[in-house]
């Protein structure tokens, strides 16, 4: 069995990029996503004694990334409201966003960003990580029925927004 340090290196090699991309789907900003996923890897290292299994570690990583992405968004919303009060016309995209913002990709990320948290999370886990309904339910701590309804509502909300691309 791996030590916590070995597990960290293995998990990082296998999942770092994918999890950062997952978080970008959730929070939009790549710098924020890297912070979120970095924290998740530190947390999984601290828990390795209890996880002891790469599959469970990956499930834990996913869950941690989703939860921390949600928190990062809330924090961002507070910062945004604060900034908006001081500079009402500040709607220029930041540097990180500008780097990402090329046409269709930006449109998809914007459309995801406009969805309620749960819908966005379900869509990302389903269409990006290809998780099953029950895996999504477990990751988010919600029922399979709720996964289904978030998925269909989210997809329905995205379609008109993405009409041009679809």
């Amino acid at each position: 069995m791996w030590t916590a340090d070995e597990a960290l290196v293995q998990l990082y090699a296998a999942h770092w990029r994918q999890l950062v991309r997952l978080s970008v789907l959730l929070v939009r900003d790549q710098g924020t996503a890297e912070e979120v996923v970095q924290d998740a890897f530190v947390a999984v290292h601290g828990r390795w004694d209890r996880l002891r299994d790469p599959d469970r570690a990956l499930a834990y990583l996913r869950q941690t990334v989703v939860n921390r992405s949600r928190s990062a968004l809330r924090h961002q919303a507070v910062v945004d409201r604060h900034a908006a009060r001081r500079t009402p016309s500040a709607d220029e995209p930041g540097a990180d966003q500008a780097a990402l913002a090329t046409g269709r990709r930006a449109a998809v990320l914007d459309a995801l960003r406009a969805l309620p948290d749960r819908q966005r999370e379900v869509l990302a886990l389903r269409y990006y990580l290809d998780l099953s309904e029950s895996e999504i339910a477990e990751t988010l701590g919600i029922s399979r029925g709720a996964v289904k309804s978030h998925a269909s509502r989210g997809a329905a909300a995205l379609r008109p927004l993405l009409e041009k691309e679809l």
Partner: protein
Amino acid sequence: MDLQELIHDAVAGVEPTDRLAAIQARAATPAGAARRWWYAAGGVALATAAAVTVVAVVSDDTPDPGHHHGEHDMTADDPAVGTQLLPIYFVGDAADGSRLYREFDEVPAGDPLEAALARMQRPSTDPDYQVVWPQGTLESARLGDGTIDVELGDVRTGFRAEDLEVQEVVYTLQAVAGERLPVRFLQDGEPVLGPVDAAPELDVLNLVSISDPGEGTAYEGPRASILARGRASSFEATVPWEIRDDRGEVVREGFATAEGWQDHLYPWQTRVDVSDLPAGFYTFVVETADPSGGAEQSLLFTDTRTIIVR
């Protein structure tokens, strides 16, 4: 392009910077101390120096409350008597000393304030908590003029409003009354303390608590699942939970998300499928989230319930 291709494509250009070295540096910080409580499996109370002392009893012939345990148990199952479910706070060991924990207890029907007072003087259903008011120390409770008045029995006075045992009474009676009325403490009809307001939640309550399941709840059947809920003030509103088997092995784990976290305790709720667990005794554990991710010696609060799968 379908939705799946679009979503994959949206992040196909994202190439994260390499942060392995930074992660390793943070992971190398000693984290054992922050997690040590976790290995005290099965809700074993942490040894803390600051345990609240049991209220001093004046008369020597006051019976040991332990001997009364079970005396009233018949009432809960007796349909002729009738029962009510009341929120009762007890004192328990916490990460930073002692704090109040809440459980919902079935008590005989009747005046809820009196019933709550009686319940606080008997052992909690969860064995992790302590009784700090022995039998006979709390005599009666009633609604006064904008206050709740508690008549003390055989007990040495000299309490202060911030004492945890005083706050236990205030929290319980306010919860039962459904109103945040200050509590006056009287002895032989003379005021001895108060009116006392509830101290801030973050100062006196354990920062995570389980309302459901109750201690010893049994689950069975092919669709058995636990609807777990409670209250918490946990970093980023994340409430990690685990189910451990009787050897302390983690058999399920996940997170619930509370409705908030910063200024007081907020409700959390989650449903956990236990239909495929082998029959036996398990411990459902919730903790507060570690803001340092295990990197620092954070104070982590926890609450546990024994559950049974049949």
